[in-house]
């Protein structure tokens, strides 16, 4: 069969391959190349070697965005995962209305980043109006606004993964522990947590890479205000590309650094997923 099928390459692979070349391979290679050049329209590229990378790190903006994004990632990854895990415990007790609760908690995940950003802009500005300020008055409001938004969006998603993990634990193990006199707290910390470690790994990687890649929510909620103090990495790259003529090369260099950063976060995840597939 393999030999017959091999002849059908143009039917089975070519359409995807052509689209993949246009939509990924060519732009990716061009992107790497252009990060070492100064350009405004691709065709006028002039080789400048590492100039763009030096500029990326020495001008203000990028490092601030990196620091802001890292802080944001740490806080939101922890809060999202703790909340999601607790909700998963709550919804695996066979409680009445479990399906309804799961439906509600997951729903925000389906709403797009732009829409989410404007929903929370309304809510948070409404709350802050009681104190006579707005979301863009102080960067810390924007920071916590993004954390709250991220939690609202991601908790339900991570909860679903944790629920699947908890449901995989066989009841007999838990029952045996109960008969041996383990307290519910002991069962959670000494049995459930270690047994759902694979789910914890998936969720930590997913939330971290999503936190680093956040763009739409950032654009809609604060757009970086006040004075670019709440700009995250992806938005900073966007602003460098489209906000300053002549800085496209620097934008591309920032994008390459951003890619390396995100790849370092996502690669272990990909490798574990693939390994798990092979073992199955």
């Amino acid at each position: 069969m393999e030999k017959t099928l091999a002849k059908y390459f143009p039917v089975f692979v070519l359409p995807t391959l052509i689209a993949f070349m246009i939509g990924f391979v060519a732009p990716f290679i061009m992107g790497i190349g252009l990060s070492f050049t100064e350009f405004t329209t691709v065709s006028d590229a002039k080789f400048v070697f590492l100039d763009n990378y030096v500029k990326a790190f020495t001008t203000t903006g990028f490092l601030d965005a990196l620091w802001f994004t890292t802080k944001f990632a740490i806080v939101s990854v922890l809060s999202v995962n703790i909340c999601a895990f607790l909700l998963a415990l709550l919804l695996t007790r066979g409680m009445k209305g479990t399906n309804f609760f799961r439906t509600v908690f997951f729903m925000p995940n389906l709403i797009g980043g732009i829409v989410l950003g404007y929903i929370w802009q309304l809510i948070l500005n409404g709350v802050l109006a009681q104190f006579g300020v707005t979301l863009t008055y102080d960067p810390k409001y924007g920071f916590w606004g993004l954390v709250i938004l991220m939690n609202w969006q991601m908790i339900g998603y991570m909860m679903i993964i944790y629920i699947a993990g908890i449901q995989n634990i066989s009841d007999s193990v838990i029952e045996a522990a109960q008969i041996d006199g383990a307290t519910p707290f002991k069962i959670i910390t000494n049995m459930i947590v270690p047994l759902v470690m694979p789910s914890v790994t998936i969720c930590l990687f997913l939330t971290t890479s999503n936190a680093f890649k956040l763009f739409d929510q950032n654009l809609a909620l604060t757009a970086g205000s006040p004075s670019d103090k709440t700009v995250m990495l992806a938005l900073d790259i966007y602003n460098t590309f489209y906000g300053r003529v002549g800085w496209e090369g620097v934008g591309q260099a920032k994008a390459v650094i951003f890619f390396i950063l995100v790849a370092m976060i996502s690669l272990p995840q990909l490798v574990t997923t693939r390994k798990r597939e092979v073992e199955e």
Partner: protein
Amino acid sequence: MQKRNKVLDTTLFIVAILLSIAFIFPIVIVFINSFKGRFFISDAPFSLPTSETFVGVTNYIEGLVKIKFLSAFGWSTFITVFSVIAIVICTSMTAWYIVRVKNKWTSMLYYAFAFSMIVPFQMVMFTLTKVANTLHLDNPFGIIIIYLGFGAGLSVFMFAGFVKSIPLEIEEAAIIDGCNPIQTYFLVVLPVMKPTVITVAILNTMWIWNDYLLPYLLIGTEYKTVPVAIQYLKGGYGSIDMGAMMAMLVLAIVPIVIFYLSCQKYIIKGVASGAIK
């Protein structure tokens, strides 16, 4: 013991109810405000409309006219539906081929697809736009090819994972019965892959429907999708017509909620099994 559990259960049930209310609250507030005059929203979003602030469906009409929401909705639907169909058919065929035909080219392709999954959009944002412009793919038809290309990684990866678990015997039987590979694929392989087809379709629908940056950069000036149209409401200098904004947010959320409630079983399952990216 039994009694204590009951108290605990009731407490947790109440906690769950309160949390559900907290989760739905923002959407309800947006809905309520969509019926208030534009100047009564920002300062007091938590107050109900009064006879003074209630404006009926004015905001909806204003929004529909201002950003041509219906046309945005049409383009979003068109692009999402056809991109997802293209992705499902093309990438599942490719995945089957590269798993079944073993040579160094197919394994290289496999790793290239897998690699593309970890590349963030910003990395190719500028160059992809240039390539698409040069090839005249900057229209609602061309963007389908771009979605297929940029989204192929995850989908090929997921289909390939599933193909590995399909026993070869089924396909060999079809070949012996006289099917050519195309018939074998559509009559035997594709039906077996149905669970993954649903997962891939749902993940890509969620991505493409909500995507902002790619349609904005590629076709944003001429053809606006829903997220692009909503962002467009913001205007140049940060002055937002809050009334129209609220109404359009409601119109953007309603179809998603309907879609979610009508196939939530598949969505939740699909999202759980597609938790890679």
